[in-house]
Each structure stands twice: as C-alpha cells, then as structure tokens.
C-alpha cells in the first residue's frame, strides 16, 4: 500500500479543532453495499450476479474511505482538563483503546464460552481437537509471541529516536504476522483437503469460526501495522510514540487471546 502519508508537518500548528470529515459517511456507504452483497449468500449461494457485484463495490468503497480516513488530518478536542477519574494519567486515545479491548474481551469470552458450552453438551471427553497435528498451532504461538516482542522493540527504538529501528521492528512484526497467517492458511488448506469444512460438524464449526475471528483480528492488526510503517518511514513516532504503544496494547491482546485458543482447540 503506497500512500503518501503526511506526518511530520503536523507539529507546531496552533490547536484548531476540525469539525468536518466526509469519510465516516463514505465508509458507511461502503459497508451498506458490502452487507447487501453478503446477504445474497444466504445458505452459501448467491441467487444472482447483483450480489457479488454489490459486495465487491462495497469493499472497494470501504477500503478507499478507510484510507481516506487514515491519511486525513483531524484535530480532536482535548481531554483531561479537569476531572478524569479514574483515568487521570491515561490520555483519551489510550483510554479508548483499553475500553475497546474490554469489550473485545467479552466478544472473545462469548465465543470461547460458546465453544465450551457446545463441547460440554457434546460430551467433553468425546471431543477431540480438529487439527490432528499440533505443530502448526505451536509454531503460530511462537510467531505471535515473537511479534509481540518486536512491537516492544519498535517502542524502544522510538524512545531512542531511532527511525530506522522503528521501521525495521514494525516490518519484522508485519512479517511475523504474515507468517502466522500463511501458516494458518496451509493448516486450514490441509484440513479442507481432508474434508473438514466449517459445515462438516459442530466441532469444525467452533474450530474454524473461533480461530477465524482471531485471524481477522490479526489481519486488522497487520493493516494498522502497514499504516504505522508508512508513517514511521516518514519519521513519525520519534517525538510522540504513543500511537505505537496503543498498537502494542491491541497486538498483545490478540496474542493473549491466542494463548487461550491454542490449548482449547489444539490440545484439550
């Protein structure tokens, strides 16, 4: 994704709040088209060509608008000008990330709880993990743990005002994340070859959907990572590395979730 990201010039302008942005509207239009397209795939097949076309159109509008939002300069209002209990020392964005993660905990909690509920109803001991081989999962655990570590390296490099270090650490994170996804792709493909599909039974359903949700979180994180790399390339985060920290929070969270999913779906 080659986007020219303006970055280092936004310091030193006097604080003026912005009030206009067209991108939330455009993103939503993209989402609307995407969902209309998706609805056509009820029971897996689309009744007409209109649905796939709408789906792709929606995806394009959505992606374009997200890029637009990402590169737009926008000054939000300040926080912490008085009472801020219990978040006095945590700025707005970080508070927001923490709160979002709290909701994500419930999301994953519901997915994991559901998987456990179904397994208990099925008979806990009658249930064997879907993948016959634990090695790809184990490899992925190490890949994610390492990538969490490289995010910390990026933060350290930023504190030392080492632009090169930030970029390299983030690229390493990206590569490790891609490695995770490729490894998972190979594993899934292997399972598909052996006739395990989402709809095969309730066991494969929980396996693919729960780890798939986690995979979607990884993909989301990597997209943010690409955006960070672009900005870091232009010298961002040396003065103000908080955004790296926020990304780190999210990325560690995704990592921790995997530490729950791995034993549940590969070992137990």
């Amino acid at each position: 994704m080659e986007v020219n990201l303006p970055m280092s010039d936004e310091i030193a302008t006097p604080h003026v709040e912005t009030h206009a942005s067209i991108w939330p509207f455009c993103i939503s239009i993209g989402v609307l088209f995407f969902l209309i397209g998706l609805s056509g795939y009820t029971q897996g097949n689309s009744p007409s060509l209109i649905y796939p076309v709408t789906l792709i159109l929606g995806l394009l509008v959505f992606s374009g608008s997200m890029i637009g939002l990402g590169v737009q300069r926008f000054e939000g209002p300040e926080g912490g000008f008085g009472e801020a209990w219990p978040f006095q020392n945590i700025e707005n964005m970080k508070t927001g990330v923490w709160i979002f993660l709290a909701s994500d905990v419930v999301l994953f909690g519901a997915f994991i709880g559901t998987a456990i509920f179904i397994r208990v109803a099925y008979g806990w001991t009658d249930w064997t993990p879907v993948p016959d081989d634990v090695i790809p999962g184990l490899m992925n655990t190490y890949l994610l743990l390492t990538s969490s570590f490289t995010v910390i390296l990026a933060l350290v490099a930023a504190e030392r005002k080492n632009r090169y270090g930030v970029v390299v650490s983030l690229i390493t994170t990206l590569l490790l994340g891609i490695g995770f996804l490729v490894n998972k792709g190979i594993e899934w493909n292997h399972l598909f070859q052996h006739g395990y599909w989402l709809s095969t039974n309730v066991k494969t359903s929980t396996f693919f959907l729960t780890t798939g949700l986690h995979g979607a979180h990884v993909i989301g994180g990597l997209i943010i990572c690409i955006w960070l790399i672009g900005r870091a390339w232009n010298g961002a985060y040396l003065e103000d590395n908080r955004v790296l920290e926020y990304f780190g929070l999210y990325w560690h969270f995704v990592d921790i979730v995997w530490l729950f999913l791995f034993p549940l779906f590969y070992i137990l």
Partner: protein
Amino acid sequence: MNKLLQTDGGHSDDHGLPPMSSIKRWLVTTNHKDIGILYIVTSLFFLVMGGVLALLIRLQLWLPRAPGEGLLSAFAYNQSVTAHGLIMVFWFLSPFAFGFANYIVPLQIGARDLAFPRLNALSYWLYLISGILLGISFFQGGTFNGGWTVYAPLNLPAFTPQVGATSAILALFIFSVAITAGSVNFLTTIHRMRAKGMTLINMPLFTWTILLTVWMMLFAFAALLAALMILSSDRILGTTYFSTTGTQGSLLWTHLFWFFGHPEVYIVFFPALGAMAEIFQTFTGKRIVGRKWFIAALVLVTVQSFVVWMHHMFLTGINLEIKTIIMITTIGISLPFDLMVFALIYTLIKGRIQFTTPFLFAFGGLILFIIGGITGVFLGAVVLDYEFRGTYWVVAHFHYVMVGGVTGLVAAIYYWFPKITGRMYDEFLGKVNFVLYFIGFNLLYFPLFIAWETPRRVFTYPPSLIPWHQMATIGGLILAVSFAVMLYNFFVSLSRGEEAGPSPWKYASTLEWALPSPPPLENWEGTPTYENGKLEFLPDNIKTDGGESTHE
C-alpha cells in the same frame, strides 16, 4: 433535515464546516450537536416506521382471524411483529436517547465535543445504514420473521430461508458495531473530559444514566455481537452452532441473547430515567431527594443487570437451583428501582411544581413505570411466570416499562427542544399531546393485562376477549395521533415559536442552560470550570493543567 436550517447558531467561526442550510454540512459534520440532531430526526423516522407496523398488528387483532383473513397474511404478520420489536428496541429507543446524549452530555460535563468526533460520526452513519438495510430486507423476499428474540433454530435458513432475513441479521450486526464504537467514545468522553470540579458524584443525573448505559452497552452488545457473528456464519458459511443437529443449539442462543437482552432493558430505560430526574428537579424546583442513594441505586442496577438474564428462561431447561438464584437476583434488581421511584415522588414535596409539558410527560411516565414495575413483580414469582410466559401479560408489562421509558424521552424532547432549536414549543399543543398520549397509552396497554390469556404473536384468540383487543386498537390509534400532534407542534414551533433565550426554565441548574440557545459550534468561549463550587468560564489564555492535545 432542512427544517433545522433556521437554527444555525450564527457563530462566525465555522472551521470550514458548511452552514446548516447546506446538505453537505450534514454529511461531513462531526460536531456532537449536529450528530445529536441527526440521531433525533432519524430515530423519529424509525418511530413512525415501527409505529405503522404496530398499527398493522393492532388492526389485524381487531377480530380473531381465520387463515388468510384480515390485512396481513400469516407470514406478513410474523414479519410485522418481528420488525416492530426490532425497530422500536434497537432503531428507535436507544438512538432517540443517544440523540440527547450526543447533544447534552458534552455540554453538561463541560467538554467541547466527544473524545473522538469522527468515530461519533461513523457511529451515526453505521446506525443509519443499518436501518436502511433493515428497510431493504423487506424487499428481499421478506424480512426476518422469527420474533425480535431471534430464537434458534428458527433463525436458521432451514426455517427462515429469505435473503431478507439474513439482511436483517446483518443490519443488527452492524448496528451493534455502531453501538460499540459509540460506547467507547462516550466512556472516554465522560471519564476523561469533565470540567474541573465536575467529579463523578457531581455529574447531572442524565449524564450519570448515560455513563452507566454505555458501560452496560459496552459489555452487553459485545455478547450480542458474538451471537450475531455466529448466527451470520450459520446462515452464510453453513456452520452448525444453532442447528437442530447440533446439541443444545437452541439453549445456547437463549443464553447468548438474554445475556445481552436483559441489560438491554436497562440500556433502553436508563436515559429516560435520567431525563425524568432532571425534569423533576427543574419543574418542582426541588433537588432530587437522596441524590447519592439514587446514584448508588443506578450503579447497583448496572452491575446486577448482568446476573439476571436467566429469568427469561424459567421454562427453558435450567434447573431449580439456578432458578432460585436467578429469582433472588431478580428481586434484588427490582429494589433499587423502588428507591428511585420513591426519590422522584419525595422530590415533589415542598416543590413549586410547574405543570409544563415536559413535567407532565415525566410525571405520567413515572406513573406508567410504577404500573409496569408492579406487574413485573408478578413475573418475578416463578410459579406465576410459568403461566404468563408467552402471553399478553408479558406484552403488556414490558410495554408499560419500555413505552413508559418513551414517555420519559418525550418529556426530554420537550425539555430540551428550546435549547436545541432556540424556540419554544407550543404549550397548548404540548398539553393536548400529553392528554392524548396518556389516554391512548392506557387504552392501548391496560386492556392487554385483562386479555392476558391471549398467546403472544398470534392473531387468533378466544372471542370473549374481542372487546379488550378492540379497545387496545382504538388506544393505539389515539397514541399514534398524539405523536402526530407532537411532530406538528415541533414543525410549527421551529419557525413560529417564541425565542427561548438561554434558559426558559426557572430552576434549571445544569451547564447547558447557561449557554445561548442553540449553543455556538464550539459551545463556549474559554474553559468552563466548577472549581469554586459553581460554574465559571475561564478565559482561554489561562492554561489549566493537563490538556495535551491528542490527535485522533
């Protein structure tokens, strides 16, 4: 939208935002007041949509119908029942309340805007397109028709194969995403961006209820999001979580749904309660009695709301021990509400009560809520619940509570109308509205208690109940007329109403009434502070502590 053109604050510094008369303004705006107006207008549109469906239902129920008789086919009736529930609960009630939350909460706490203005705009637009998607679903072979509780396995394509049913589920899914984004935004704003001296305990009660509402939303909607993701996957990718071949899929859905669904009741009702408390305070000229306890009760309900969900499942295969625990928590959660009701009633004493339209609605709303609460105790007794389950007792009870909440929000729109538009509504029409509303409401819902033996979501019932159902239908029409009066009142008052000035209310105490009506784009010059125990505006050049600028 264009109706609101005249209401431009006339502030010179528009920061590149087009004027209110331009359509573009409303597409690009990220200002909390603009978005508040967008929420209110949009949610009123969905009120009309849900209301029309309700009238269709009531007309079908005019007489017990044989198959094929009446306005609606069986399929259309099920769609109406389902969509009415979904629209009123999701697309009308919460967004209506969040219109006020958007407009009023930043003003009450002394923030210039929400913490993440673009995210706020995104929440609104996702809400709008989710509603549009639900509208489209009617034309995709029919919308979802398995009830607003979307029980499994009826929610699977094997039983509801319509493309529109999938659209409705996806609409609900994206609505939940919008709510989650909004919750993060409001939580950050209310926790982080209060003026000096505006500690949590000092916050106005409306802001308190919104704070607790968004905390509940954050967790409850995450559970719904999970449920809807799984359901969409079952419908589209063919996973088998809820299918009959899977084990206990039906029970799984009820757990997931009601874990969300019970907090949702308070999510819907809390903002109305907060608005009622403020309105009581303003028009009785008395501060809320036992304010501290009122807040404690709200917090208690918020926490407890996550441990009562199984009282919706007393007949759904849970064992006696769990039933007993849930019965206890259910009684437990009703008591804080008793306290709040008493607090509002005692506030009347030694007041100087002005019977303005907002007060009448708030007062009437409290009466309706009391009736809803008493009939709710019936449902808390499990032996009675067994028999009430799936009957009009439940329908009548939750309409008294939920539409009781709407009554509080109607009070809120009359209360803040002068602030938002700068014009007074017509007091006479307002009172006419109230009288019609109150009569229509009770004529609509009270007979349903008497006709409670009617099973829910059917249009055949014993002929002996015909008079009660006909009364209810007439009541429904009167209620509809009362809303028409309200909309007419606002429409006319927008151009012809008296200038309201900063505060038309004698005993208003919260920050928004210290500002011009409507407030300018950036709300105020300088920085509001309560540091010295009362509201002051510090000039801009005095730097308060903290205040590092952050980029969204």
